[in-house]
């Protein structure tokens, strides 16, 4: 009898909880009715029907979330507590601008179809099994932005859970025994919390909260996840693994969606304390995925501490509480770190946006956010198939929590609280042109703070440069690079004939007299960034080279958008004999994602191609551009090179810790050769090269800042650091002498070229590519004494010519630097378009070589002749001509170009492959087009 009464009480209480927010009506009458019904139904519990009205809303920071109709939208969404056998009828009204559905994996739900913006739809869920379930928006990844919540289905009778007591006994509990409950959603690398008090009231705890309790409180945790997997760990507490007798303190949350509910007696056997809870994936820990379970001593209030809120102190925030801005990590060109409200900011800041608080701000990037000190920035890898890091590139001098970084690339997200005012720029180490910027602005100063106000508005760089004035030429160049890279309207579209660059008109506060001409207004230096604007500069593609090349040039136009697929990128094939675009290869059938780099099979019949923002690798029929095979090879494959000896394929797995190998003539990876010894930090190799004799594979290891030399069987022969004892060199691409005597590695962030001995790996020289540049005032002086004013900012691909005479370095700052290998000095720099990136050599008709150079933020190919008269003296190196990469009427295509035509030039490959070691293996038909010298590039 006692048990029955308790059941009734529990039942009554539970219904009160779950219906609390359903309508605006006051509860006593409903409660009374339920009580009567419960009495009448006596020993069995009537399966209840829950009618729930939800809306989907856009939050001030652009995230989307569910709300119990009429209430504030919350993340996680309202927790729905029901009993086994109950029915949940959800009426969902979509007040967002995206399609939103309602899906509950694991529970019967006839339809989870999405509802259009402004429309309403009903969903019916049968709570057929006890357990904890995720519900989510089923919105093509946008659900990770906040459209998720918990459905907790308890058994109709008996205990709802058990806890492990201090003495080891297992104590069953009913809902009435529970003092409080917490829902903690693990999404990206952030926890989203809700507290449910014993009376059923739900309170949002937002991002990375500190849930509180008093020692010996019975606390039920509902851990849920959506997206990439996690493990949940809470310090000093133990609990039962659901459905088993096993006692655990860490639980896997599997990929896609997963749940785990458990109960603890707070502090039992261990006492009061701030007990950390966190994801136990090391990369997620490093990405900020933690909080504390604050267990107060008996007598304390056990209050929770709320985390960062999407309503809080950010630009246009609505509440005076710690705020949160959120970036979606995306494979989308320019919007790699896209603010959840990036589109809204662009629209609101347009000069024509009447009545907007941001009217005329002219913000063209979706990757910029503004918030107050003490708020947090959140990243979620919701729109990408690759792995990434979220790494700080620069920050206000001395800022808290900087540098921010992870020791390996991963899938998830990141969150970090920013206390110090100033500009923070984040990048991905694997894809180092992905940029997101946050200005943390002290509301008490005039203009947005670009540096730390307490340190004369200076910034620190990840490369160890500290206290750089924000008025310096280098700081301004970096700022320009950010605004150009993240805004396609600022790119050089040669098909339009004009170039415009618009920077925001927002006033910024910087270190001193900037860009020459502004004065201190008595309140420090400030100016509008739009002072840097470029207005209607005329653009012409320029002439094609007069001497044709041999064969074809394949260019990964990695940002070009086509109609038949969601992911960006095509391959543009240029006929080198007449400099026209012959073919576009989009591969819509595999949603070809950011094709990055290529190599060819020995007989030149198959083009191998990596998908850098994915884990796939494609084989393409060179003659007709058709897909042969799409293969999983590891995350973020970057470059591919064959072994000239065997024609085996080696692929640098940039997001991981090895080189994948596909034996010649096959289509499956048979092994991944580790780029580091067991247990050591992942090397994350990017643009590798293979020696002409096939005996060595050489990788630039971006995560460990060294050059790795590996035998063809994978043995590690050398690891040579390239950073000269400074951090963050970021070696990114390798070039190698045709006789393998020397190896060259471009260090992206140090603006240097490392030269090492090709046999021993011993460091020979580090060539400073910005020796002539004064980073403070931007002046150029011949500091390296080579008789040339030559600079290469942010160098990337750096191949050695097949005859071994020259290294050509495509520098993303907009220069092509030429090095004479005889002296290992700079002999020349030539202009390149913004985002200059790829370079590779092909044969020039009648002898000699062209270096084909690609750019990301322009849409033409630059053809460089390093030695026009063939005398071995490179001082006459010149640009032979240009080729537009925009498709024409005669271009063969497998899909229709719909945006960013010809943009995103990265990997480039000339067919035939004329490098020493490979050229000798060409079929006779290909050799016919080459001179005798080209067939034997080093005379053998």
């Amino acid at each position, binding site marked *: 009898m006692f048990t029955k009464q308790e059941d009734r009480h529990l039942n009554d209480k539970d219904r009160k909880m779950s219906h609390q927010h359903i309508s605006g009506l006051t509860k006593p009458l409903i409660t009374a009715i339920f009580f009567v019904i419960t009495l009448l139904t006596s020993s069995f519990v009537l399966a209840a029907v829950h009618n729930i009205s939800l809306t989907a809303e856009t939050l001030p920071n652009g995230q989307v979330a569910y709300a119990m109709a009429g209430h504030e939208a919350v993340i996680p969404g309202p927790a729905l507590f029901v009993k086994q056998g109950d029915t949940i009828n959800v009426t969902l009204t979509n007040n967002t601008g995206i399609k939103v559905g309602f899906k509950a994996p694991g529970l019967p739900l006839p339809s989870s179809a999405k509802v259009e913006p402004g429309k309403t739809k009903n969903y019916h869920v049968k709570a057929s099994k006890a357990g904890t379930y995720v519900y989510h928006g089923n919105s093509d990844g946008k659900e990770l932005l906040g459209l998720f919540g918990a459905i907790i289905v308890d058994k109709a009778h008996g205990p709802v859970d058990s806890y*492990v*007591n*201090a*003495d*080891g*006994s297992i104590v069953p509990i009913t809902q009435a025994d529970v003092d409080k409950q917490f829902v903690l959603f693990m999404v990206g690398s952030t926890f989203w919390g809700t507290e449910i008090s014993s009376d059923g009231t739900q309170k949002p705890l937002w991002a990375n909260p500190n849930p509180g309790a008093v020692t010996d409180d019975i606390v039920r945790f509902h851990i849920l996840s959506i997206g990439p*997997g*996690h*493990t949940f*760990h809470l*310090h*000093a507490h*133990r609990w039962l693994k659901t*459905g*088993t007798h*096993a*006692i*655990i*303190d*860490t*639980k*896997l*949350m*599997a*990929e896609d969606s997963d749940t785990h509910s458990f109960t603890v007696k707070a502090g039992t*056997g*261990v*006492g*009061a*304390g*701030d*007990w*950390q809870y966190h994801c*136990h*994936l*090391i*990369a997620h820990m490093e990405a900020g995925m933690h909080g*504390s379970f604050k267990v107060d001593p008996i007598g304390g209030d056990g209050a929770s501490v709320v985390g960062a809120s999407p309503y809080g102190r950010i630009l246009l925030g609505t509440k005076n509480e710690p705020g949160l801005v959120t970036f979606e990590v995306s494979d989308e060109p320019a919007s790699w770190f896209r603010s959840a409200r990036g589109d809204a900011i662009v629209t609101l800041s347009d000069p024509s946006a009447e009545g907007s608080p941001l009217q005329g701000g002219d913000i063209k990037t979706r990757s910029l956010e503004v918030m107050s000190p003490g708020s947090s920035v959140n990243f979620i890898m919701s729109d990408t198939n690759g792995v990434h890091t979220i790494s700080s590139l620069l920050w206000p001098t001395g800022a808290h929590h900087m540098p921010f970084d992870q*020791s*390996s690339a*991963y899938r998830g997200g990141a969150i970090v609280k920013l206390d110090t005012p100033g500009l923070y720029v984040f990048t991905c180490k694997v894809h180092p042109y992905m940029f997101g910027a946050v200005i943390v602005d002290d509301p008490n100063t005039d203009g947005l703070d670009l540096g730390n106000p307490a340190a004369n508005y200076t910034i620190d760089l990840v490369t160890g440069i500290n206290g750089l004035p924000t008025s310096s030429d280098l700081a301004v160049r970096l700022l320009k690079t950010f605004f150009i890279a993240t805004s396609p309207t600022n790119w050089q579209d040669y098909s339009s004939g004009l170039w415009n660059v618009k920077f925001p008109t927002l006033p910024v506060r910087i270190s001193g007299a900037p860009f020459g001409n502004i004065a201190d207004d008595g309140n420090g230096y400030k100016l509008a960034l739009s002072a840097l604007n470029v207005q209607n500069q005329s653009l012409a593609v320029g002439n094609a080279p007069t001497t044709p090349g041999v064969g074809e040039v394949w260019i990964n136009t990695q940002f070009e958008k086509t109609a038949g697929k969601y992911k960006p990128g095509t391959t543009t094939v240029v006929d080198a004999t007449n400099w026209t675009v012959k073919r576009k290869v989009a591969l819509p059938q595999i949603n070809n994602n950011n094709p990055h780099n290529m190599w060819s099979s020995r007989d030149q019949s198959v083009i191998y191609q990596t998908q850098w923002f994915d884990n796939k690798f494609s084989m393409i029929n060179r003659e007709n551009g058709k897909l042969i095979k799409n293969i*999983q090879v*590891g995350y973020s494959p970057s470059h591919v090179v064959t072994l000239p000896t065997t024609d085996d394929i080696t692929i640098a797995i940039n997001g*991981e*810790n*090895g080189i*994948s190998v596909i034996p010649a003539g096959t289509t499956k990876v*048979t*092994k*991944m*050769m*580790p780029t*580091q*010894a*067991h*247990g*050591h930090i992942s090397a994350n190799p990017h643009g590798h090269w293979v020696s002409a004799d096939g005996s060595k594979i050489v990788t630039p290891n971006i995560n460990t800042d*060294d050059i790795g030399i590996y035998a063809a069987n994978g043995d*590690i022969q050398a*690891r040579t650091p390239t950073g000269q004892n400074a951090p963050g060199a970021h070696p990114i691409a390798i070039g190698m002498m045709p006789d393998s005597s020397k190896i060259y590695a471009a260090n992206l962030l140090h603006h240097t070229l490392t030269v090492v001995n090709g046999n021993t790996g011993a460091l020979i020289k580090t060539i400073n590519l910005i020796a002539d540049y004064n980073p403070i005032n931007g002046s150029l002086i011949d500091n390296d004494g080579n008789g040339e004013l030559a600079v290469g900012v942010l160098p990337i691909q750096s191949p050695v010519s097949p005859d071994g005479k020259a290294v050509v370095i495509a520098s993303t700052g907009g220069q092509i630097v030429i090095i004479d290998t005889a002296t290992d000095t700079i002999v020349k720099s030539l202009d390149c378009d913004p985002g200059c990136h790829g370079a590779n050599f092909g044969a020039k008709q009648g002898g000699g070589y062209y270096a084909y150079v690609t750019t990301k933020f322009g849409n033409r190919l630059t053809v460089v002749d390093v030695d026009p008269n063939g005398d071995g003296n490179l001082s006459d190196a010149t640009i032979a001509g240009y080729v537009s990469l925009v498709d024409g009427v005669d271009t063969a295509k497998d899909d229709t170009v719909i945006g960013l035509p010809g943009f995103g030039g990265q990997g480039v490959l000339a067919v035939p492959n004329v490098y020493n070691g490979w050229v000798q293996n060409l079929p006779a038909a290909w050799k016919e087009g080459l001179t005798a010298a080209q067939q034997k590039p080093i005379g053998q």
Partner: protein
Amino acid sequence: MSFQISRPCCAAEFLENSRATQWMPHNAAKQLLMMFLLVLAMSCLLIDKSFAAEHIIQLTAEETQDDGFGNKLLAYKMESHTVDGVPITDRYSAVATIPGPTIVLTEGDTVKISILNAIPGNGIPTPGISKQVSIHVHGVHYDILSDGTLKVINKNHDEGAGAGLEETYVVYEYKWNVAPGTAGTWAYHDHNFETHNGAEHKGLFGAIIVNPIEAPSYAKEYVLYMGDDAFWGMEINGTDKKQSKHGANPTLSAKENTNVRFHLIALGTDLHTFKLNGYRWFDPGTDNLINQAEIGPLEKHVFTVKARHSSVYVDKNFSNQLMGMRGQFNVH
């Protein structure tokens, strides 16, 4: 229970944790007296639990030899381990190993375990970077002063050896209560090196095995940590309790038809699927026979099999499988 009673005497921690900096609680003397009284009380209570052993353990953390190219890992080494005053240090490797020493305990035991930091330069404070190493243990009971975390997390102290973010200790001692209900295999690992996440992924990890009081014995026990590119394993001989075969992807051995126990723990960033080809075992805490297990970082998975045939243990994770994350299980 006895351990619980000793809990309020947290001042003991301050005295035993020898600090390089001059700092003492102002009422240390009073707390010292309290501690003595409580220890007395504790001793009385211990009498009715004579089987409960007291472990005194000292570990060091040091750098390993480099990989030939200047890259080093970190590792724990057993300096000494006594059980009720009887030394058992010779069961352990004489050098630092990855994984670290496996510490075998029984429910009801108490442990005082201290960490000495032998990493070069560890005593020199550097703003924003912790040079401490700690022992953060899973599963057993301990109070907030034995959490092995930095003050930024636990709000009390930088609980490790070496220069932390705020405090420097030469040696830090932790107290574990191997209370009833803590039987199982659990990880211990650093939580303090460089950042508040520690260096668990650089080699500073090991296992504790907490046996229930009436536990069966095994001919061999194997600890296999699943990292991001290799198993880090070791073997314990069931007879002489000696620990051996430390390192990456070790070859494990067993006599045919003997009972052996595998202790799997994962660590790092990867999620794993473990398989011991040709064997099935009980999913822990259930009656379900399984032949593979999904394991995420710091989860544990313990099972026993009768060694009937040689086999291979593998991780089925796409990249790890290609990278050769596997080892031999030789039965003879």
